[in-house]
């Protein structure tokens, strides 16, 4: 028998991922867009663009602005809506041996309940990720994400409707992220994801105007990574449910920072725009790293930050 090499498998609650590298919502379309560059079977999971009950057309342009080592976006949750997602997008993803996670967003608690219910019944969806943190639209869920009670109430309301795991994607811009994370856990979440973009403003000084049509947007990319790694560690040290790290993961070292800080998996976002093969390069890099560290399983790395 040949040496099987290190096992990258990780678990998010009951959900087994073949490796800890997934895509972040809104940066990987509905999967098909990246098929020319990435074998979707090689990913830990595919998290698709946020879905609402009805289609949304999004914010007026300009919608993105580049900043040093980052970008600010205010897309405005443009999406095809639940019905078209189920009819046109999900069947494509079902052909692959990869868990599909659907990010969902709503205006009211009932919207999330209906979305989670429909996606549970659809078949082929492994988890829902509740977006309680979009900074770019008034109904983007951030009103929920800033308030621990609202988060707990929302998750508890969705729980009975969802027969699949519920992940909650948190906003990083709160005074006490652990309180919000605990509220999600109390409500019945299976995992928390930290986190969404940071609310931000970029100004064109010559025109004295905001660079985005929506005025404000959300900052992502390597610029925010160290802040997110810390938040990830705070949550991983305090919660019982798994934590998923998101924010500026560009290469394997970045992914490892989150994993060592206690994340059971990471999501790759902005990097997909820069280099479409980032996710699979990270998977390769992890395999190499585990070999170099002389360990055989991801569990021997996750949360194993040395503090002495």
């Amino acid at each position, binding site marked *: 028998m040949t040496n099987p090499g290190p096992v990258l498998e990780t678990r998010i609650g009951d959900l087994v991922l073949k490796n800890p590298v997934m895509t972040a919502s*809104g940066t990987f379309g509905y999967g098909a867009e990246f098929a*020319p560059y990435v074998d979707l079977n090689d990913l830990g999971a595919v998290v698709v663009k946020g879905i609402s009950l009805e289609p949304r057309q999004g914010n007026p*342009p300009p919608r*993105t*602005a580049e900043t040093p080592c980052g*970008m600010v976006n205010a897309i405005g949750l443009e999406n095809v809506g639940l019905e078209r997602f189920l009819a046109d997008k999900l069947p494509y993803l079902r052909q692959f041996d990869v868990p599909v996670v659907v990010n969902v967003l709503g205006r009211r608690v009932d919207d999330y309940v209906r979305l989670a219910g429909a996606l549970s019944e659809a078949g082929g969806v492994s988890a829902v990720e509740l977006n309680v943190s979009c900074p770019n639209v008034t109904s983007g869920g951030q009103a929920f994400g800033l308030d621990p009670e609202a988060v707990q109430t929302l998750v508890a309301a969705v729980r009975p409707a969802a027969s699949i795991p519920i992940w909650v994607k948190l906003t990083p811009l709160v005074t006490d992220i652990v309180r919000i994370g605990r509220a999600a856990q109390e409500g019945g979440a299976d995992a928390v994801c930290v986190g969404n973009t940071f609310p931000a403003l970029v100004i064109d000084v010559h025109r004295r105007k905001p660079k985005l049509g929506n005025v404000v947007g959300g900052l992502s990319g390597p610029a925010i990574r160290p802040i997110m790694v810390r938040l990830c560690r705070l949550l991983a040290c305090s919660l019982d449910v798994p934590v998923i790290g998101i924010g500026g993961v560009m290469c394997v070292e970045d992914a490892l920072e989150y994993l060592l800080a206690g994340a059971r998996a990471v999501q790759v976002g902005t990097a997909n725009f820069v*280099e479409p093969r980032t996710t699979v390069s990270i998977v390769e890099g992890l395999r190499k790293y585990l070999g170099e560290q002389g360990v055989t399983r991801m569990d021997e790395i996750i949360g194993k930050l040395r503090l002495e």
Partner: protein
Amino acid sequence: MFSVEAKIVGRTHCGAGFYLLELEAPDVSSRAAPGQFVMVRVGDDYDPLLRRPLSIHDAGGGIIRLLYRVVGKGTGRLSRRGEGERVGLLGPLGKGFETPPSLESAALVAGGRGIAPMLFLARRIRRQSPSARLILFYGVRTGEELVRLEAFENLSVEIRTATEDGTMGTKGLVTQLVRDRLFSDAKFQIYACGPMPMLKALGSLAHEHSIPAQVSLEAHMSCGLGVCLGCVVKSKDGYAHVCRDGPVFPLDVLDWEDGK
């Protein structure tokens, strides 16, 4: 669509901050169509973070040619990359110009750096319709910004230039040149690339004379793949995505009402 590390095999300063960059990329080159673009990674670090969308100026023989003007950090960085170095190239991307199998006459209308996609288009039309009459209407602010004229001459393209300051060609805007021409001959198919006000003016002109027109739009793009949904433009059916639905659009599908 390919993601490659393309070797720089040529780099020429064409004046006025314009550069002609030649890249060895056989896959991209053989698949490319006029009006399509590539996403170029200008460096291997994260500042600037995003790739730059550049339209394909010419393609063939395993080579992709890009003509761009240094306008900011990304293009400045790209202009300092030398021969033999490699740059990340993603493409060919987007929907290009539609060229009927045989064409009697076509007007290529370019404003400023909108000249970039026109050469590849002229080459394609010339190949498909060897006897077609091709006229390039090319407008810039000042004479030194007129670049690559000899490449068009080599394809037997008639050239009419306009400069805003009158240093070369007709003084004024390129749209005026087109207007004067169209009154005498309305059989043109129009292909255009340039700033929004130019395209808008051309839009009303084409509409007035019922001339079919296709325009190539420029937009800030983060991915070029249709996933970030950043590069939208108003069409008559709501927002269209420049990277995936374009960058070339039939002029009459765009909604010019609010100028965006």
